[in-house]
């Protein structure tokens, strides 16, 4: 092995050598630098490899031939190797990225850059406190030099602020170090640690001085304005280095110096970390300047890393994964984003629309953003998971909550940014600067991030217990996205079919899982058929479709909480990306992801509490955990409620469904929605009978009534069906809240039913919209003659929805009535039935406004919906009809699966279903009605065989014909009287509430960020106050 001292010698030597070059020989100086950095990478890399994968032991390098305390010693252990590798790797790529800048600035710039990297390396490796000080100072001065690369007054001012802040820090640090020396007579870190500073008189003060200085160096909120200004003003290449090279260095320095406090400071560090994490992410919400935003995010990431460092004892052996996960994610993603920001012309987030139409760059952008936001399978996802689990098992629920709050703020701005880029209608006219030497580092960081993902997935494979083939499939779709859409559609459908056949045996014994498995895969494959109607490549559609379905499938097959959660997040991300493809989906998709992830965080807490109780991450232990702590079930339930859009948490749904692409809505609404129900089944089965479920039942009622009434007032066809979904989810929630077999049977019956008719309806309406290009129903009308097949679909859909015999919907009502009286929830039940009658309003509106009434001139020559829209509808209709005639095909296995639940079931005698209350024979009902219908039809035909068809306007119209179809097509706001009577039930309090919450958050973030007033002196004062306050607080008072 090459001794690590050569990390120093190579860097230092190169810096000296550069003094002999000439500015015009930039090839030589630049080449030297790159060569040196490459060498340093090799050294760090070989050590990293040897220490982690070989049998190399950590080494100490002594300088000047003495052993400490008489000399400075450097250490090369696993941490040092890995972190110097990170630094040097970023250094190399950063040098490539900055090459033309450095070249322009001359050989001194190269020199400063080398010194910068040198300082970082030594600060990481050194075990001597004073040496640490020196090299941190060297790094600081070099950084200040690099800030000079941008020749603006703004950058100069930021540089000065930086110098002011770091000088104060270094003064404090130096005093601390010298007093430490005077107390324990050594500068060697290990010596100081062994010296037991906290036990010596005055030692606590020394510890305070040293650690507060290092802490300030990590830019803790709120004494970090200087850092943010530098991030904003420096060249993005330098910002990247500050975030991904200096950041890890400081974090590691804190980590290695922390033991001098004898453990007393661990929690303090973690607390400052959480304050920084939450505070910075909160203020970042209002940022519009890219680099400043990234700065806030970097500071926040440093904060969460400090949490891990401070809580290393609690984290135990998982510490390294938590720390690595957080560090690596920030490393790759932040460098990537900073470097990308250098390609973009302009400073505002809005300028990133320049990336539009550049799939690879957009992919990288999305990859970085969503990794930072902690979506799977990013390392941060696993790190946060592990962090939450370990915190929970140590009773750190408050920590857990704050970490999730901070993460949520982070999510707010990251997804809004992404949404702006994807969804904004304006595209910045400027062209991004796509120089190869700038693109390559970004790409490498992307590849690195993906590689880390693979590593973490591999590491957590036993805990995940999931099938990796689907994940590989997603990756393959990303790579093959250049293929035409029909090919990708075919492949996706075939893959889903194949997976269904392969894995159906896994869930065969669990009827509930089997139902969802079939809905997700078979239903999904059918609904995807509509995609054949679209031409072109549809880049960025199928990977997300696959992501959604892989997530859904994973939910069903998961056996561990981690596997479940990963699938859940994958589904949320995939569906979010799908929705955000819609033309006007910017805002709605954003709200969708916020609610999705908000719910997911509650799940995370629930799983955490469960882990704390049982100590294992199995889904099957949730029940045990919930018996000890019902909070498990309650947290999970509330989390799932956001997915099924229970009233209060529903505002994301109508927009999201309406704005998604027309062939995406069916499976988002008809299929993906069931994920929430699957979750509820999981969570409610473990807290069955808890008093909480009584409230839940009422929530179901409110959801059903509210959703259905709101649906009746919609003019947008997709929104109407979307609100209707909320209503149906209310029924199901209501049913699941009852702890009796009949109710759960009704719920599962509704799951199947809702999947069938909702997919049919959305496909049919999607097909219509495909032709009419409008979603406003009152603009359509009379389409029955042009689109008879779509009409029949909608007719069958609404009959099933309304619960009218003989179609399957009636079975749902029948089961419901039985469940309600068995459980004794009479009033609630009656209100749910009331909502069922309200459903007629929108059912009629949907079908009549589109298909009946007066045809408009502009649709005179419209054609039937594309065959690929019609085909899946009729496949599903066949299913619906079978289900209507033979409901026992579903109900009997479901009853068997639910047999352990309290309450009676259905007695079957052939097709005859009986409970102690009533009876129902779907087969006979269908037969009787069909025969009767045919006879009566024959009777009418017999009597009116001479009937002649008349034209559209030939009707009883006061002796006239209508002048235009618009004047006699009654479709707009037709339930105005109903609104007048009962509209007070649906005043949008929820929307008001969330709007108010959002405005308050927004306004306070905007107000609080004024704390950073841009004045270096104020920043200095803030630091001094921070130090004093910190001291007073740890000394326990004023």
């Amino acid at each position, binding site marked *: 092995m090459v001794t690590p001292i050569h990390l120093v010698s190579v860097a230092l030597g190169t810096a000296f050598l550069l003094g002999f070059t000439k500015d015009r020989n930039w090839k030589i100086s630049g080449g030297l630098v790159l060569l040196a950095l490459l060498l340093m990478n090799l050294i760090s890399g070989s050590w990293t490899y040897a220490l982690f994968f070989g049998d190399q032991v950590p080494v100490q390098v002594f300088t000047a031939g003495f052993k400490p305390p008489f000399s400075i010693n450097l250490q090369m252990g696993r941490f040092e190797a890995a972190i110097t590798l990170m630094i040097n790797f970023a250094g190399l790529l950063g040098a490539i990225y900055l090459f033309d800048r450095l070249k322009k600035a001359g050989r001194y710039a190269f020199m400063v850059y080398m010194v910068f990297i040198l300082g970082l390396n030594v600060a990481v490796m050194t075990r001597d406190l004073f040496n640490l000080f020196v090299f941190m100072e060297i790094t600081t001065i070099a950084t200040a030099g690099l800030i000079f690369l941008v020749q603006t007054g703004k950058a100069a001012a930021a540089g000065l602020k930086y110098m002011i802040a770091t000088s104060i820090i270094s003064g404090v640090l130096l005093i601390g170090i*010298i007093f430490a020396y005077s107390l324990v007579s050594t500068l060697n870190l290990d010596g100081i640690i062994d010296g037991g500073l906290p036990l010596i008189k005055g030692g606590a003060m020394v510890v305070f001085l040293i650690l507060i200085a290092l802490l300030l160096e990590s830019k803790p909120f709120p004494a970090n304005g200087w850092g943010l200004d530098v991030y904003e003003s420096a060249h993005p290449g330098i910002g990247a280095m500050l975030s991904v090279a200096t950041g890890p260095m400081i974090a590691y320095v804190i980590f290695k110096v922390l033991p001098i406090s004898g453990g007393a400071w661990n929690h303090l560090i973690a607390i400052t970390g959480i304050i920084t994490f939450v505070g910075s992410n909160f203020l970042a919400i209002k940022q519009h300047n890219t680099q400043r935003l990234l700065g806030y995010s970097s500071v926040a990431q440093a904060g969460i890393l400090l949490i891990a460092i401070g809580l290393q004892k609690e984290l135990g052996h998982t510490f390294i994964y938590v720390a690595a996960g957080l560090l690596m994610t920030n490393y790759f993603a932040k460098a990537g984003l900073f470097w990308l920001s250098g390609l973009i012309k302009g400073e505002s987030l809005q300028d990133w629309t320049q990336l539009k139409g550049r799939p690879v760059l957009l992919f990288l952008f999305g990859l970085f953003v969503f990794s930072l936001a902690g979506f799977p399978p990013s390392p941060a996802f696993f790190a946060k998971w592990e962090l939450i689990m370990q915190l929970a098992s140590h009773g750190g629920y408050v920590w857990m909550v704050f970490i999730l709050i901070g993460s949520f703020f982070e999510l707010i701005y990251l997804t809004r940014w992404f949404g702006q880029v994807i969804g904004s209608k304006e595209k910045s006219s400027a062209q991004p600067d796509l120089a190869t030497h700038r693109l390559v580092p970004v790409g490498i960081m992307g590849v690195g991030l993906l590689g880390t993902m693979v590593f973490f997935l591999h590491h957590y494979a036993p805990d995940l217990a999931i099938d990796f083939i689907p994940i590989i499939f997603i990756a393959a779709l990303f790579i093959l996205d250049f293929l035409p859409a029909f090919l990708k559609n075919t492949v996706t459908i075939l893959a889903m079919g194949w997976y269904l056949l392969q894995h159906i045996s896994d869930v065969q014994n669990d009827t509930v899982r089997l139902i969802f498995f079939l809905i997700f895969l078979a239903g999904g494959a059918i609904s995807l058929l509509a995609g054949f109607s679209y031409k072109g490549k549809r880049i960025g559609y199928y990977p997300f479709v696959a992501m959604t379905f892989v997530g859904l499938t994973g939910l069903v097959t998961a056996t561990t909480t981690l596997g479940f959660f990963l699938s859940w997040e994958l589904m949320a991300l995939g569906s979010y990306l799908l929705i955000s493809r819609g033309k006007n989906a910017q805002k709605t998709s954003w709200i969708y992801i916020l609610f999705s992830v908000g719910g997911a965080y509650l799940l995370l807490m629930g799983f955490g509490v469960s882990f704390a109780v049982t100590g294992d991450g199995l889904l099957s232990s949730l029940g045990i955990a919930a018996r000890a702590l019902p909070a498990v079930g309650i947290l999970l339930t509330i989390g799932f409620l956001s997915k099924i859009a229970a009233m209060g948490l529903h505002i994301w749904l109508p927009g999201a469904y309406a704005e998604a692409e027309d062939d995406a809505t069916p499976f988002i609404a008809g299929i993906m929605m069931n994920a929430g129900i699957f979750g509820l089944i999981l969570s409610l089965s473990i807290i069955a009978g808890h008093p909480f479920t009584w409230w839940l039942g009422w929530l179901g009622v409110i959801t059903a009534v509210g959703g259905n009434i709101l649906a009746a007032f919609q003019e947008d066809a997709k929104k109407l069906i979307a609100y209707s979904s909320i209503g149906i989810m209310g029924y199901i929630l209501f049913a699941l809240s009852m702890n009796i077999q009949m109710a759960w049977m009704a719920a599962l019956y509704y799951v199947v039913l809702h999947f069938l008719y909702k997919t049919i309806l959305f496909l049919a309406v999607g097909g219509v919209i495909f032709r009419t290009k409008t979603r406003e129903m009152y603009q359509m009308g009379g389409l029955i003659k042009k689109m008879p097949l779509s009409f029949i679909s909608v007719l069958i859909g609404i009959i099933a929805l309304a619960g009218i015999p003989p179609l399957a919907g009636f079975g749902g009502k029948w089961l419901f009535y039985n469940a309600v009286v068995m459980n004794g929830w009479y009033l609630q039940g009656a209100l749910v039935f009331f909502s069922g009658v309200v459903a007629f309003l929108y059912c009629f509106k949907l079908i009549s406004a589109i298909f009946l009434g007066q045809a408009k001139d502009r649709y005179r020559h419209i054609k039937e919906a594309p065959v690929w829209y019609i085909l899946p509808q009729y496949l599903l209709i066949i299913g619906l009809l079978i289900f209507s005639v033979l409901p026992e095909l579903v109900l009997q296995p479901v009853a068997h699966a639910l047999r352990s639940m309290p309450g009676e079931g259905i007695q079957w005698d052939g097709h005859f279903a009986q409970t102690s209350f009533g009876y129902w024979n779907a087969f006979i009902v269908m037969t009787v009605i069909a025969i009767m219908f045919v006879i009566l039809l024959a009777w009418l035909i017999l009597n009116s065989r001479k009937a002649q068809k008349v034209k559209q306007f030939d009707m009883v119209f006061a002796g006239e014909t209508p002048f235009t179809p618009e004047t006699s097509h009654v479709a707009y706001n037709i339930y105005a009287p109903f609104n007048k009577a009962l509209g007070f039930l649906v005043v949008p309090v929820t929307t008001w509430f969330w709007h108010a919450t959002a405005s308050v958050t927004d306004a306070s973030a905007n107000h609080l960020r004024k704390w950073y007033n841009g004045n270096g002196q104020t920043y200095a004062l803030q630091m001094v106050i921070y130090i004093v306050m910190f001291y007073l607080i740890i000394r326990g008072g004023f």
Partner: protein
Amino acid sequence: MNFFSVQGISLTIGFILILIGLWGILTQRNLIRIIIGFTIFNNGVNLIIVALAYMKGRTAPIIDQVVTRTDAVDKVADPIPQALVLTAIVIGVGVTAVMLSYTLRMYRAKHSLEINVFTESKW
């Protein structure tokens, strides 16, 4: 430690210098004055380092005819802080130089040395 010993007085002066420096950094509006504040602050820190290394009756840790290799341990003061303070002074000079060069750049940009003028990046 005797407060009125050489060491005590030096330490006190050192801390007073630090406070004066800090006062200057936090109250002066002129950039040059702020930088002067920093040099005073640094000097205070350096004085403290030296003061801590002070041992009564001992001489500078330089080995020559007066202080030979053999009796150095008994005759000289602690050499390490002395070495440290040299480094610290050098660094201080570097920092001051960088600050001054920033000031120069800032003055060229806005023709002002008032610190509260330079708040372009904020919030």
